[in-house]
């Protein structure tokens, strides 16, 4: 397969997953905004969301430090100057798809192109009609449509690159969302276990579509320990870090056997997966959740770079 084709497949899946995460982040935001303010601590929930989306610098340059809800909505959904806004993500995903149309099933193309066309329609409507909850739901639905359509793709190396894109993005996103809740939203340890704390945890789980799944698996109240275990180490939860890393491992292994050669990505993943698979939740807490997540996000980014170097840039 052409490296450029693989690259387009990888990024189209990544950008659609990222659009999904932006919608989930905003969902956390508006649910938190319904609560009385947590008082001091981080400037406000909306500021923390922009920080979690990794685009504080761009936002402040454009809107200043006010972090009003409307500005944040604009920035994270409609703003083309923000490369990770929902609009930018969906347009980039479609562009990547268009470049490799014949490598996609017609259902996948319909999902990408349909999302793009509907979005143009939404942008034409007055903003007062574009309610945030509906926009979030719409975005999540588009991502789900593409994921569903991808199941029908020929299960060849192209399918592996699509999945590598999705799972690399998703594990990065889960780590960031968890970090926001733990490090950014809750200013002091004295509030742990309080009503605000509980409300925030349940909001986070809802945003990850994991509210019910958590209760099935852990019966009962939220503790940082249980939630950290759920989102990091529970291999049956499709957004957990361990699950994503295992999926990445599967697709890297398929590539290695199809191409009969391994890359630096295989070695790095083996180390990462080894650590995650054996880790206890105590290890994570001892290291400090924030420190652990920061380290994970870095390793994950390096893994993405290895995949790019090994396959997407056309090794000579």
């Amino acid at each position, binding site marked *: *397969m*052409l*490296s*450029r084709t*693989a690259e387009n497949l990888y990024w189209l899946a990544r950008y659609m997953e990222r659009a999904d995460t932006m919608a989930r982040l905003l969902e956390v935001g508006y649910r938190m905004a319904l609560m009385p303010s947590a008082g001091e601590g981080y400037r406000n929930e909306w500021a923390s969301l922009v920080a979690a989306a990794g685009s504080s610098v761009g936002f402040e340059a454009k809107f200043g430090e006010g972090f009003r809800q409307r500005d944040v909505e604009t920035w994270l959904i409609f703003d083309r100057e923000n490369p990770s806004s929902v609009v930018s993500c969906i347009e980039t995903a479609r562009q990547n798809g*268009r*470049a490799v*149309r*014949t490598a996609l099933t*017609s259902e996948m*193309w319909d999902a990408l192109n349909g999302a793009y066309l509907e979005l143009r329609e939404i942008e034409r409507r007055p903003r007062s009609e574009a309610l945030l909850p509906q926009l979030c739901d719409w975005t999540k639905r588009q991502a789900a449509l593409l994921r569903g359509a991808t199941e029908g793709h020929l299960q060849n*190396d192209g399918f592996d*690159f699509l999945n590598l894109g999705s799972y690399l993005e998703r594990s990065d996103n889960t780590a960031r969302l968890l970090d926001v809740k733990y490090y950014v939203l809750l200013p002091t340890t004295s509030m742990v276990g309080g009503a605000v704390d509980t409300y925030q945890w349940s909001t986070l789980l809802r945003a990850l579509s994991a509210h019910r799944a958590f209760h099935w698996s852990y019966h009962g109240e939220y503790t940082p320990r249980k939630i950290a275990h759920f989102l990091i180490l529970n291999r049956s939860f499709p957004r957990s870090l361990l699950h994503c890393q295992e999926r990445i491992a599967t697709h890297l292994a398929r*590539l290695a056997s199809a*191409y009969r*050669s391994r890359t630096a990505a295989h070695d790095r993943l083996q180390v990462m997966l080894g650590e995650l698979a054996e880790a206890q939740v105590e290890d994570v807490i001892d290291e400090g959740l924030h420190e652990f997540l920061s380290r994970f996000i870095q390793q994950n980014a390096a893994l993405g770079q290895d995949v790019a170097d090994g*396959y*997407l*840039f*056309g*090794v*000579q």
Partner: protein
Amino acid sequence: MYDGNDVRPAYRQLVDWVGSTSPETLARKKEEAEALFRRIGITFAVYGEGADTERLIPFDMMPRIFTEAEWRKLERGVKQRARALNAFLYDVYHRAEIVRAGVVPADLVFRNEAYEPAVVGIDPPGRVYSHIVGIDLVRTGPEDFFVLEDNCRTPSGVSYMLENREIMMRMFPELFRSSRILPVDDYPQRLRRTLASVAPPKCDGEPVAVLLSPGAFNSAYYEHSFLADQMGIELVEGQDLFVQGDFVYMRTTEGPRRVDVIYRRIDDGFLDPLCFRPDSMLGVPGLMNVYRSGGVTICSAPGAGVADDKAVYIYVPEMIRFYLGETPILKNVQTWKCGDPSDRKYVLENLKHLVVKEVHGSGGYGMLVGPKSTQEQIAAYAERIKADPGDFIAQPTLALSACPTFEDGEGLAPRHVDLRPFCLVGQEVHLCHGGLTRVALKEGSLVVNSSQGGGVKDTWILAD
């Protein structure tokens, strides 16, 4: 399709079918066809139209029909022309016998913009320069076919031929059951074999062919991806290829892979920034060196454009006699060269009866259709001709063949058509049993180019 006032026999069955089908059914079929085209995404880009550059090409459901006997004659004529054009190309890049013999003027060849000094003396495999020859034809009578122009570089439109047929078969299976229509869907496989048959001398093993496209923003990108897909070869852009040592490679997820044959859909000037335009982002640096040393075949060969120049066109019948010693089967349209003083005088005096074209233009842009133009337009065009006479040729407007075409609200009405059959030249010469029929959708219009509001039809060859 009309023979005097009578419908030609080949169309009989079709006309009976239309007569027995209700207008509502026909209208519904037309909508279905458009929906199918939109689903598949067959669009073409029109330059200079602002934001929405992806448009559907209008499709007419009424096919154009030839009998196999008619087609056989046309086939002999097209193949003859394709052979002569390739012989001419080999000649002008070697000993130029035809110029020495005084048959074709030297200026016309060597001072032609499309003449490529960089490929003089190179022997492409099989001595083939133009591997896909598209000959644009019109018919003026049962036995009279005229060639409008030759396309030796990268004629486009073959995807419409294939998709038009696909859509017709989906919509009117009953017509295909009762008429024996020769298939066209072997074209991609034949093209692939043609490309493989001209693999370079240094190729050992199964030749690897690729289609080199300028990318997704090109107006013919749909066709590029369609053909690559149908042939099962990679669709590459310049950035996917690189030169190392004596060969061209493509970047793949499994490392470099050697490429033997490049079916390029980019112009000569963009092929290799080290040899041609240094600002080209679409090409592959070093490609021409590999080509010279026999490491890769480029289809069509660089420099092939000199044979389809509208001024060189005038000499094609002479080429057929000169190289093949045969009598030309297809006729040329009478053509006046504005560069020639006596021709120019005639052209300027008769502009309102003539069609005037730029010698190097294409796509129906920049032409004057005398009978359809106002006094002011004609006067303005005359000034352009006087300023640069060598850049223009003129032809009479022909009594073009008309073909029944669906018109909103009018039912069937005659519209002018032309035909582009596709001839493949490799170790063998093959003409596909069909072609692209373009139709001028405006009543009385003679311009069939899709960029000028023309549409397309399926083309049927009925087996004897």
